[in-house]
């Protein structure tokens, strides 16, 4: 069980959260201008690093807010959490 620090509520157990995949995937400015391949790339292609990964989480059983977290995919250590709209903090 991970202990995930919600930027609003503080540390809560993992069971209160839902995972939302990679963070900072911007919606295309003009989706209709994209080729099928570009659109598919936006929809389905995500980074899959071994190490620190900025990803979205929702505190679904708590304050129900979405936020971002930098989690190490190899160790599960969470290096930072930050609110929607904030830039990814430098975690070295």
């Amino acid at each position: 069980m991970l202990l995930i620090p919600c930027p609003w509520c503080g540390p809560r157990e993992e069971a209160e959260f839902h995972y939302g995949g990679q963070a900072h995937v911007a919606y295309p400015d003009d989706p209709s201008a994209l080729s099928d391949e570009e659109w598919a790339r936006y929809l389905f292609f995500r980074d899959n690093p071994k190490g620190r990964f900025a990803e979205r989480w929702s505190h679904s059983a708590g304050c129900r807010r979405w936020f971002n977290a930098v989690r190490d995919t190899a160790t599960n250590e969470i290096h930072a959490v930050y609110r929607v709209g904030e830039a990814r903090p430098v975690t070295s």
Partner: protein
Amino acid sequence: MAERRSPAAAFAGRFETASASGALRLAELPFLTQLNVRVDPASLAADEVAGVLGAPLPTEPGTAVRSGELTVAWLGPDEWLVIAPEGFRYELLRKAVADGRGSVVDVSAQRTTLLVAGPRARDVLAHGCALDLHPSVFGPGRCAQTTLARTQVVLLPQQDGFLVLVRSSFAAYLAAWLLDAATEHLL
């Protein structure tokens, strides 16, 4: 007129029996008025809401304020739960957000309220809740949305116990769970 029946009404007798020893008091507080208020806390509408409530909207996560017979609990950065006695009239609150961007929605039927009080209240809840419920960190003036026995609840600490707000459709399950969790504390 149809007779109203509260979600945990069937447990009244068992709650009373479990409360007899004095170690614990279990009861349903049915039909409280509950209002979901959403408004930008920096807006004029929020000031008007605060004026109607008689208290500023708490902006610190996990806190609640009391104003007379009202309790205002933080649910999110732009969302609060106002708990009021049965029959509370909230036209003025509605009016406070009418001009600005905000909403006041009657969610009284969404959850019912269970009282878990008495010397063993914290021990009983701790069987199914991961939060630190000690009064030094979670006393009156705090609130939390979390899970209790895997069920989503809003917890509001009181002077000698907790109000547990639970969805109506989960109330019977949680009531049964509370009675089971209480067993070892009632000897």
